[in-house]
C-alpha cells in the first residue's frame, strides 16, 4: 500500500502529468470565477482532450481543473455576492457581508485556507476510506437517502430565524423549493407538470439561472440602492493583514473546519447529494455551533465562521465523491458521473481493480487533489490583495460588469433567452424574499435536492409502502431531524434563562 502511495505521487510529478495538471488548473481557475459555467460542464467540455493521455495524465488534468474550480468559485461569492459555482452559494451569506464591512481580504484568506484544509482532509479520507466505506454506502437505500435529504432541509431551517414563525418560514421555503423542482416532465411517467404550455419548461428549470438570479440580483439591486462601493465608504482595509487574519481564523476555529470537512466528505460519499448540499449543511452546522442566540445573530452579517464552514465542505466533498466513484463506479455527484466517462475513455473500469491492480492510479488522484489545492491556494494568496481591491471600486462601475457575467453565465445553462428571463424572475423573487424576511437558503436547498428526493420518495413508497418509515437508519435520521428542529428552541430557551438569571 505504501509503495502504491509513493508510485501515485511519482505519477503526478512526471513532467507531462504535472504540466497537464497545471493547464487544467488554469482552466479551472477561470471557470471557477465565471458564474454559471460549472466545474461539471467544463469537465464535459474537456473530456475529448484526454483520449491520447495516460490515466495518470488524464486524471491530473481533469481533477486539477475540477478541484480548482471549487476553490475559486468562492472568490466571486465573497467579492460580488455572485456565486462563481452552484456549489459556492453558501459562501455568499457571510462572505459578501464581510466584503461590505471592508473585510474582503479576511474573508478570502479564510475561504482559501479552509478550502485547503478541507481538500487535504477529503484526500486523506479518500486514501484511508476506500477499503472500509463499502458497508456505509450499501446500507443507504432510497428511504435512507430520502430521509437524509430531509435532515439536510431541516438543518437549513435553522437559518430561518428562531421562534415558531422563523421555523415555519424555513420549512415553507424548503417545500417551495421542492415544489418548484417538479416543474417539467416527470421522468418515470412522462407527465408534463406545470409547463404552462412552454417547451422551455419541459426539461424543468435549470439550477444555474435560478441560483444566480436568486442570489446575485438582490445583491446587485442593493448595491445600486446604496450607490457606493461594495465596501461602502470605508477606508480600504490593510489587505495583507486581512488575508493573514483570515488564515489565522481557520486555525482559531480549526475544529469547526474539521467538522465541516467531515460533513463535506460524508455528503460527498452519498450518491446524488452533491456539493451544493454539502456546503449548505456545513453552513447550517456552523450556525448551530453558535454558543447562544446573540452569537448566532452574528451569522449572515459577516461572521468568518460562516465562510470557514462552507469553504471547508466545498473542497472536502471532492475526496468524498471520489470514494464511491472509484470503488463502486457509483458517481457521488454530477461531475463524478462525467469523470466516470473519463475512466472508460482511458480504458479503466471503476471497482475492485482500482483498489488492487490500479491502486497507484487511485493514489495519483489523491495526490492530484492535494497538490492542485496547495498550488491554487498559494497562487490565490499571492493575488488576493489585488482581487480584494475591487470591493473599493464604486458600484456604478462594477454593476454592468457583474450583470454581464451573471446573464452570460445564466445563458450558458441552455443557450436560450428564456434563461435570462428565468434569472430575472428569480432575481425579483429573491429580492422579495429578502425584503419580507423569507430565507433563501432553504428554498435553494429544496430546489437542488428536489429531483433526487422525488425519485427516492417514489422508490421508497413503491418498494416498501409506508414500512420504510420503520427502517432502523430511517428512524435514527427522523430522530436526528427532530433534534435539529428542536435545537434552536432549546438554545433560545437557555439563552432567555441565562439572561433572566443575569438580570436577577
Amino acid at each position, binding site marked *: 500500500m505504501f509503495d502504491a502511495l509513493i508510485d501515485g505521487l511519482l505519477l503526478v510529478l512526471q513532467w507531462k502529468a504535472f504540466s497537464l495538471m497545471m493547464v487544467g488548473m488554469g482552466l479551472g481557475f477561470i471557470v471557477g470565477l465565471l458564474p454559471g459555467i460549472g466545474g461539471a460542464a467544463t469537465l464535459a467540455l474537456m473530456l475529448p482532450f484526454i483520449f491520447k493521455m495516460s490515466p495518470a495524465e488524464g486524471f491530473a488534468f481533469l481533477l486539477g481543473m475540477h478541484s480548482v474550480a471549487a476553490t475559486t468559485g468562492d472568490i466571486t461569492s465573497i467579492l460580488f455576492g455572485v456565486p462563481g459555482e452552484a456549489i459556492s452559494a453558501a459562501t455568499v*451569506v457571510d462572505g459578501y457581508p464581510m466584503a461590505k464591512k471592508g473585510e474582503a481580504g479576511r474573508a478570502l484568506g479564510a475561504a482559501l485556507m479552509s478550502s485547503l484544509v478541507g481538500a487535504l482532509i477529503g484526500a486523506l479520507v479518500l486514501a484511508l476510506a476506500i477499503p472500509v466505506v463499502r458497508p456505509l454506502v450499501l446500507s443507504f437505500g432510497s428511504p435512507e437517502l430520502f430521509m437524509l435529504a430531509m435532515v439536510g432541509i431541516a438543518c437549513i431551517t435553522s437559518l430561518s430565524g428562531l421562534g415558531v414563525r422563523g421555523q415555519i418560514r424555513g420549512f415553507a421555503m424548503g417545500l417551495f423549493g421542492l415544489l418548484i423542482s417538479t416543474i417539467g416532465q416527470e421522468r418515470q411517467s412522462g407527465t408534463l407538470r406545470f409547463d404552462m404550455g412552454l417547451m422551455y419548461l419541459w426539461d424543468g428549470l435549470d439550477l444555474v439561472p435560478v441560483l444566480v438570479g436568486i442570489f446575485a440580483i438582490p445583491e446587485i439591486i442593493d448595491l445600486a440602492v446604496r450607490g457606493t462601493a461594495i465596501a461602502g465608504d470605508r477606508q480600504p482595509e490593510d489587505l495583507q493583514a486581512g488575508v493573514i487574519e483570515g488564515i489565522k481564523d481557520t486555525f482559531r476555529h480549526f475544529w469547526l473546519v474539521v467538522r465541516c470537512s467531515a460533513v463535506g466528505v460524508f455528503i460527498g460519499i452519498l450518491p446524488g447529494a452533491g456539493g451544493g448540499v454539502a456546503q449548505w449543511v456545513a453552513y447550517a452546522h456552523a450556525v448551530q455551533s453558535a454558543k447562544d442566540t446573540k452569537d448566532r445573530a452574528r451569522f449572515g452579517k459577516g461572521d468568518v465562521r460562516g465562510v470557514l464552514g462552507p469553504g471547508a465542505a466545498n473542497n472536502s466533498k471532492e475526496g468524498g465523491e471520489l470514494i464511491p466513484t472509484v470503488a463502486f463506479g457509483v458517481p457521488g455527484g454530477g461531475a463524478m458521473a462525467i469523470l466516470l466517462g473519463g475512466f472508460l475513455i482511458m480504458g479503466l473500469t471503476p471497482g475492485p481493480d482500482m483498489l488492487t491492480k490500479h491502486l497507484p492510479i487511485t493514489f495519483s488522484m489523491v495526490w492530484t487533489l492535494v497538490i492542485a489545492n496547495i498550488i491554487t491556494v498559494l497562487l490565490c494568496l499571492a493575488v488576493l490583495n489585488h482581487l480584494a481591491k475591487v470591493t473599493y471600486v464604486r458600484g456604478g462601475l462594477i454593476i454592468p460588469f457583474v*450583470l454581464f457575467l451573471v446573464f452570460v453565465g445564466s445563458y450558458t445553462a441552455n443557450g436560450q433567452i428564456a434563461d435570462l428571463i428565468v434569472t430575472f424572475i428569480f432575481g425579483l423573487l429573491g429580492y422579495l424574499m*429578502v425584503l419580507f424576511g423569507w430565507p433563501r437558503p432553504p428554498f435553494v436547498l429544496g430546489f437542488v435536492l428536489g429531483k433526487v428526493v422525488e425519485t427516492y420518495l417514489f422508490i421508497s413508497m413503491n418498494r416498501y409502502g409506508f414500512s420504510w418509515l420503520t427502517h432502523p437508519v430511517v428512524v435514527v435520521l427522523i430522530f436526528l431531524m427532530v433534534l435539529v428542529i428542536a435545537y*434552536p428552541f432549546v438554545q433560545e430557551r437557555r439563552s432567555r434563562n441565562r439572561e433572566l438569571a443575569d438580570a436577577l
Partner: protein
Amino acid sequence: MRFKPRSLFSLMLMVVAAYAVFAARHWSFKAALFPFATGIPLFLLAGTLFVLEFFGGDEDTGGPAVELELSTDVDPAVARRRIAGILTWIAGFIVLVFLVGFPVAVPLFIFFYLSLQSRVGWRLSFTLTGIAWLCFYGLFQWLLHLPFEEGFIQSMLGI
C-alpha cells in the same frame, strides 16, 4: 388584526401550493405524489403563517433569519427610484440581447450604463467597454467556444 405587506408573500405561497395540488389531481400516482407531498404541507404552513401574521403580534422574539440585510440608510423615495432604475436596466439588457444577441448587446449595454447611469466620462466608458468586449470574445467565444444565438434583428434581416 392588521394586514402587513409581508403577509402577501404567505398568500402568494398559498395560491401557488393550491394551484399545484389542484393541477396534480388528475395526474398518475407517480407524477402527482411529489406535488401533493410538498404542496399540501406548503399550503398549511403558509396558511398558518398568514393567520399568525394577520391576527398575531408583530413578530415573535426568536431573532432574524441568517440573510442579506438590505440597506436602510438611504431615503425610501430615493431607494424606490434606484430600484426602479436598476430593474429597468436589467430588463433593458434582456430585451437588447433578444434583439441583437450577446456579442452586440454586451458592449452596448456596458457603454450606455457607464456613460448614462454611472456618469463616467466617454473615454473611460469606451476603454472599459473595450475591455469587457475583449473578455467576452476572448473567454466565451475564442477559448470556451460557447454558442451565442444571433439576435431577432439579425435573423429578420438575414445578416
